[in-house]
């Protein structure tokens, strides 16, 4: 198989590969119009038609197609070529000389470093991270007193109250009910617990009851309840007609279990 005689049927060109190369080299064919992949496909198809791999043909084709690709790549990026082409030989020589001189100086500097390394090669010293204490830094730049005061005022504003309304359980202090009951007992010697806490929330009623127990424990009051769930009657301890102590205890237990 002769690569040059490879028949091509491309959009921009129809004929043997050889002719295409000639036309390209003579600038009679715009290389950027040529689909190089198409050429490769044509070659591969031809290659597949044969049973054995023609290494010589492959090698030749690779060389030719690589050259073609390079030409095309250069054609597609014309700026650099134009930049260099615009230079007069004199200017080009000057530019080249400048670059060479620059490199030559660095090369000599490298040679100097190499020599230096030889003469200074017998220097041994400790290498390692310097265990330096951290530098003390001034935390703040100088500030204007007015600005400082303004900022402090900003900070001094009480933060907005966080709402706890979404939390169901709120316990009023027991002391609140202690005071309330004591006040009631100062006016009258006895009162009805249920009537006193009517209209309060369940939690408040519970706390009120705790206050009641507290007062009972300290002996301020006596508590009576006729039957489970019957109204709880509260009386001053030193009030008239004290009920029997045993009875009180019983009613107390009842209340508790209720």
């Amino acid at each position, binding site marked *: 198989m002769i690569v040059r005689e490879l028949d091509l049927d491309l959009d921009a060109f129809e004929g043997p590969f050889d002719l295409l190369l000639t036309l390209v080299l003579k600038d009679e064919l715009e290389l950027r119009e040529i689909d190089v992949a198409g050429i490769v496909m044509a070659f591969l198809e031809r290659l597949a038609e044969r049973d054995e791999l023609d290494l010589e043909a492959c090698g030749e084709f690779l060389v030719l197609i690589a050259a073609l690709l390079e030409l095309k790549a250069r054609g597609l990026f014309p700026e650099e070529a134009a930049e260099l082409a615009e230079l007069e030989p*004199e200017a080009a020589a000057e530019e080249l000389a400048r670059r060479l001189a620059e490199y030559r100086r660095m090369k000599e500097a490298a040679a100097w470093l190499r020599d230096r390394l030889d003469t200074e090669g017998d220097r041994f010293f400790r290498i390692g991270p310097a265990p330096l204490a951290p530098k003390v830094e001034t935390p703040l730049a100088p500030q204007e007193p007015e600005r400082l005061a303004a900022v402090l005022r900003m900070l001094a504003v009480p933060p907005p109250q966080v709402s706890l309304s979404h939390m169901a359980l709120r316990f009023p202090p027991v002391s609140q009910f202690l005071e309330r009951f004591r006040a009631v007992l100062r006016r009258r010697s006895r009162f009805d617990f249920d009537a006193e806490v009517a209209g309060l929330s369940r939690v408040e009623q519970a706390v009120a009851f705790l206050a009641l127990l507290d007062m009972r424990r300290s002996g301020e009051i006596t508590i009576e309840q006729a039957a489970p769930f019957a109204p709880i009657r509260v009386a001053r301890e030193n009030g008239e007609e004290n009920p029997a102590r045993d009875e009180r205890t019983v009613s107390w237990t009842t209340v508790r279990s209720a």
Partner: protein
Amino acid sequence: MDDRPLRLIAANPLDQLARTLEALLVVASAPLDVDELAEAADDHPERVEAALRLVADRYREGRSGVVLEHVAGGWAFRASREAAAACSRLFEKPAQRNLSQASLETLAIVAYLGPCTRPDIARIRGVAADSAVANLVERGLIAEAGRDDHAGGAIRYRTTPLFERIFGLESLSELPRLDDLGADTEQIRERLHEVADLRSA
């Protein structure tokens, strides 16, 4: 009565400071400059410099196995040169071992033109500088020094104090002047111009 303190021994008034400097320098693993020493010793820089001269005289080649030297913009102890053979049997020098020509050229470019970018180096040497730069960074001879201001913002590199120390330089200004290097560049220029004349003719 004279209330000056009684002085029994006529010692150099800088002796105390000199001892402090010795201590600081023996602990340090990198050169310390006068200001750092003065701050640590809590003394005046002028007095520190005078005391350093005292210490440097005490620790000099031929007199001590430890030598005080002014290097990389500071002061540091190193082993005396006569102990180099013994040192080399025990200690490795990883930073400068087997520096290739490419690495040395790259190092020279960074030392003279730094801070400079890899494209800067590649432009002068005509080949990509990536691996040489990476190698020098790994050795600790060059280090990153910010980014280029222009578009792209390539990383810029400069030489490290370790570079100056290994090459025994007090500072980069001790490098030979660039103008003194490349003596034959004029010759190259003339030859190139001759070629250019031939072509344009």
